[in-house]
C-alpha cells in the first residue's frame, strides 16, 4: 500500500471539505473495496477521508411506507434489523448474503451503492425497489443513479447519507455467487411495489440493469411461468473464466424465476 494522509472528520461538512480540496482524495466508508485495492497498489490516493467518525450516518428507521437506511449502516445491521426484516425481508436477506460475516460487519450500504461494482448485491435492490438515494447535495432516483461500470450519478465530493426503500408487496433476491469470490455472478432482485413490478439484474452486465420484458410479463401475471420463455440476449454481458455471457444470460432467467417463486411463497 502507498502511504496517504488519513482524516477522520466528525461531521459530514468536514468530510466534504476535506474531499473537495484535494485531487486524489478518496472517501472511505466500510473500506471493504478500497482497502483491498490499496493493498494491491491499484490506487494511490493522496488522502483517505474515513467517514466512520461521522455521527448519525448509520441507522435504520421506518418512515411511513419507506425503510430509510443511513449510508454508513453496516450490512450486518441491515441483515439483522427487525424493521428491515418485517418491511422488506428480501433486503435483509440480500444484506445477509454479501461477502462473509467479517465483511458484513464492516461494509456499508452507502459504500456499496456508491462503488457500484458490477457484481455488488445492493444495486439490484436499490434499482428493483425504486429506492431514493439521498446525498449531502440532494436526491437521486434509482433509475438515474447507476450509470455504468463503477459509475454513478454522484459527483465529486457527493456522499450518500441515506437510502430510502419503499416497502414491497412482494420481493425476493436470488443470487448465483461466483464460486471463488462469492460476488454475484448473476443476482436478480424482483419486486412488486406500489409503483409496479421491477426486475433488476446485477453481476451479469457492466452495471445493474432492469429487464423490462420480464417486468411487463410479471405485471400481468406475477408467476415464474410468465417469464419462463423470456430470454436475455448474451450480447454485452460479462464474460470471464467462471461464466460466459451466454451462461450468464441463461442464469438471469433461472434466477429471476426463482426470485419470483420465492417472492410468492
Amino acid at each position: 500500500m502507498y502511504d496517504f494522509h488519513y482524516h477522520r472528520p466528525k461531521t459530514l461538512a468536514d468530510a466534504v471539505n476535506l474531499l473537495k480540496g484535494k485531487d486524489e482524495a478518496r472517501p472511505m466508508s466500510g473500506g471493504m473495496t478500497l482497502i483491498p485495492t490499496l493493498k494491491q497498489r491499484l490506487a494511490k490516493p493522496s488522502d483517505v477521508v474515513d467517514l466512520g467518525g461521522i455521527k448519525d450516518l448509520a441507522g435504520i428507521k421506518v418512515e411511513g411506507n419507506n425503510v430509510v437506511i443511513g449510508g454508513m449502516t453496516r450490512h450486518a445491521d441491515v441483515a439483522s434489523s427487525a424493521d428491515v426484516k418485517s418491511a422488506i425481508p428480501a433486503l435483509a436477506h440480500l444484506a445477509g448474503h454479501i461477502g462473509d460475516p467479517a465483511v458484513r460487519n464492516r461494509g456499508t450500504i452507502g459504500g456499496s451503492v456508491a462503488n457500484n461494482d458490477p457484481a455488488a448485491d445492493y444495486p439490484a435492490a436499490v434499482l428493483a425497489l425504486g429506492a431514493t438515494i439521498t446525498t449531502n447535495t440532494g436526491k437521486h432516483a434509482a433509475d438515474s443513479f447507476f450509470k455504468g461500470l463503477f459509475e454513478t450519478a454522484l459527483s465529486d465530493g457527493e456522499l450518500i447519507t441515506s437510502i430510502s426503500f419503499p416497502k414491497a408487496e412482494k420481493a425476493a433476491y436470488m443470487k448465483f455467487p461466483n464460486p471463488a469470490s462469492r460476488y454475484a455472478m448473476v443476482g436478480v432482485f424482483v419486486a412488486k411495489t406500489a409503483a409496479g413490478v421491477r426486475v433488476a439484474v446485477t453481476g451479469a452486465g457492466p452495471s445493474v440493469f432492469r429487464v423490462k420484458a420480464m417486468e411487463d410479463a410479471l405485471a400481468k401475471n406475477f408467476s415464474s411461468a410468465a417469464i419462463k420463455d423470456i430470454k436475455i440476449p448474451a450480447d454485452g454481458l460479462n464474460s470471464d473464466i467462471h461464466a460466459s455471457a451466454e451462461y450468464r444470460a441463461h442464469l438471469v432467467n433461472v434466477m429471476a424465476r426463482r426470485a419470483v417463486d420465492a417472492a410468492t411463497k
Partner: protein
Amino acid sequence: MTAQTGIGARVKRKEDQRFLTGTGRYVDDLPLARATYAHFLRSPHAHAKIKSIDTSAAAKMPGVVAIFTGKDTADAKVGGLICGWVVKDKHGQPHKAPPHPVMALDTVRYVGDTVAMVVANSHDEAKDAAEAIKVDYEMLPANVDLATALDKGAPQIHAEAPGNLIYDWELGVKADVDAAFAKAAHVTKLDLVNNRLIPNAMEPRAAAAEYDKGTGNYTLWSTSQNPHVLRLILSAFVLGIPEHKLRVIAPDVGGGFGSKIFCYNEETMVTWAASRVGRPIKWTAERSESFQTDAHGRDHVTHAELALDKDGKFLGLKVETIANMGAYLSTFSTAVPTYLYATLLAGQYTTPVIYANVKAALTNTAPVDAYRGAGRPEATFVIESIVSKAAKELKMDPAELRRKNFIPANAFPYQTPVALQYDSGNYPPIIDEAIKIADYKGFEARRAEAKSRGKLRGIGFSSYIEACGLGPSRVIGQLGGGVGQWESAELRFNPTGNVQILTGAHSHGQSHETTFAQVVSDKLGVPIENIEVVHGDTATTPFGMGSYGSRSLAVGGSAIVKAADKIIAKGKKIAAHLMEASVADVVFEGGTFKVAGTDKAVPLGQAVFAAYVPHNYPLEELEPGMDENAFYDPSNFVYPAGTQICEVEVDPDTGEVEIVNFTAVDDFGNIVNPMIVEGQVHGGIVQGVGQALLENAVYDKETGQLVSGSYMDYTMPRADDVPSFKLGNKVTPCPHNPLGVKGCGEAGAIAAPAAVMNAVHDALAPVGVSHVPMPATPLNVWQAIHGARPAAE
C-alpha cells in the same frame, strides 16, 4: 496409562495448545533484531528477453539496503536450482536438464519468474523500490497450452530441450499390450485433462536468514517440509556453503501438501544475500506471489484405452500422457508423472499388461511438481474414470466390474505389470463396507426422489491404491532418485526420565508431536506428557528426509520403534544389573523391567536414572547415558487402499453440483491415532473434491497470464462446498514395518476426484452427457448439458 495414550488411542493433540492460543511460531512470526525485508521483482511476462535492468533509481529510494539481479548471482557463481531425480527416457538417455538460475539472467520464462531482489528496511520500502526498477523486456511468443506444447513450431523455451521435450518415457511392453487389445471383446477409450492445481497451503512460503560474521555460520528459517534435504541441496549444489556452516530451521509450518518440499529461489537468495547485507533478511510471500510461484500440481493431458473380455475382465491398459513441467524443472518434478504415476496404473486390479507412455513438456508456466498425492491421484483418476466408463458402456454395475477385477486377497504379495509389488491388501471387504455405509442399495430410490425435485442424482465409485511411505532407498536409487529414502530417529532420555524424540521427519499439520509420542509412550510406557517431539532443525535433529509421500509414520515411526528397541535392550542390561539377574530373564512390560516369576521390578525411569547417575552401574560393560538413535530404510513401499463413494445432485438449470453424500473406507494398516487419521482423510477428500469441482489454475493461452491468480478467481473449497463425511476402515497390517502401518496423508486426495467425477457423469448420463471436463464447475456442467441437449432431445 498407555491404554489411553498408546497406539490406537484417540489422543488429543499435544501441539494444539500453542496453535489455539496464538503462540505457534511460524517463520513470519520470528522476531529478528535489525531485520531487513526482501521483495522480489517478478516478470509480468510469460516469455521475454531481458534487454536491460536499470536499478539506479531504485537504489536511491528510501530504506533500500541492497538490490541484486541475476547478473550479481552469476558473477558470484551461485549455482542453479536442481532437479534431483534423473529419469531416463525410452532410449536410456537422461532427461533434458535446462538450467534453472536462481534469478533470471537474460530471459524470463513464466509470469512470476524472478528478476531482481530488493532488500530494504521495511517491506513497503522494498516494494516501493522494486517499482522503480526499470526492466526493458522484449516479449517473446509464449508456449502455454500443454496440448500443443510439443508441436512443431511451438515457441521454444530452453535451447537445452529441443521441441520443449524433457523426456519421452515408457513403462511396459507395448507389443504385449497390443496383443491383449487384439483379443478384446470391448475397448473403452477415454480422453481427459487432469486439471492444474495451485497448492495453497494457508501459510504462504516464507524464509528468513542471518549470517554470523564471527563464526561464518548461516541460519535459514524456511517453510520447509524437509529442512535437511533443503540444506543438502543448498550446500552441495547451489550456494556451496559447507553443510555444517548452514543451519536450516523449519519451525511451525502452516501446511505444505508438497509445495514446501522443494528448494526455491527465494530461500536461496535470502540466505545468499544475508552475508552480503550483513543483517538478517526476511521474506514472506504475498498470496499473489504464492499463486504465481509455488510449484503447481497435476496438469496432464491423457488418452487411455482399456481392453476387456466379454465377461468384463481387464485384458490390458494403454495410457499416453503429456505432463506439464512448467518453465523449469522443480526439485522432484521429473519423478512425478513417471515413477509416481505410471507405476500405479494397475490400481486394485489384475490387469495383466499395461503400457504407459509419458512425455514431459516445458511450457511458459510456473514449475509443476509434487502436490498431495503426486502422480498417484493422476493415475487413480485415469483408472477409476475408465473403469466406470467401461461399466457404463457394458451396462454393468460399477461396483461389480471392480470386484470382478480386484486382486484377490490370497494373491499378495502381488507383482503388478508396472514394477511395484503390493505387499498386502484385501479389497473386496473395503468396497462392501463402503457400499453398506453409503446405502448403495437405496440409491435408485434416492435418484428417483431427486428427479421429482428436478435434480439429477448420480453416484460414483473410486477404488484407489497408493504406493507411499517413500521408500526403499535401493529402489529409489535404481529409478534415478538422488537421495536415500530412509528416516532417522533419536530417543534422548533425560536423567529424570522424560524423553525427547528427535526425528528427521517434519510436521506441518500431520500431528507428529502426538502420534510419535504415542508410539514411544506405547513402546516404553512413558507417560505421554513426559514425551516431546523435536523436529525441523538441522542443528538439533539427526539428518532425515522430511515429510511427504505419506511416509512419516511408516518410515519415521519405524525408526522410532527401532530406537525404542535399543532403549529397551540397554535398559534390560541396566535393570538386570540392578536386580542382580541375568539379562535373559529380564522382560519389559508396561514400562517396567521384571524378572519373570519374581517380584523384582525396575521401572524404566529408574534404569534411566542409573544410566545418568551410574553409581551402581556396570560401567565396565555398558556406556552410561540413555540416548539411542536409529535409521530405518524400508524394504518396500506401503500400499494403503480404499474405496470412496460419492453421491451428487446436479441442478440442470444452473449446472451446480452438490455433494450430498460422501463415503470413504480405507485400509491404512494399523492405526496409531484414529482421530488424526480421520482428520487426514477429511482434508484429503476436500482437496480431491476441490480438484473435481472447484479448483483450476488457468493461464491465458495467448498471454500466459495467470488469470486465476487470487482467491477472487481460484476457487478454494469452503465449508459449504462439502458435506460431513462418512468414514470406515479395514485393516490389513503392513507386513514389513514394525508398526504395521501404511500412509494416510494423501489417500483422500488420490481417490476423490474420480469418485466425484464418476458421480457427476452418472448423474448426467440420463440427459445425454458423456463427458464433463474437470473441474465440473457450474459453467462446465451447464455447457455439457447445453451441448448435449440437442442430441438427447
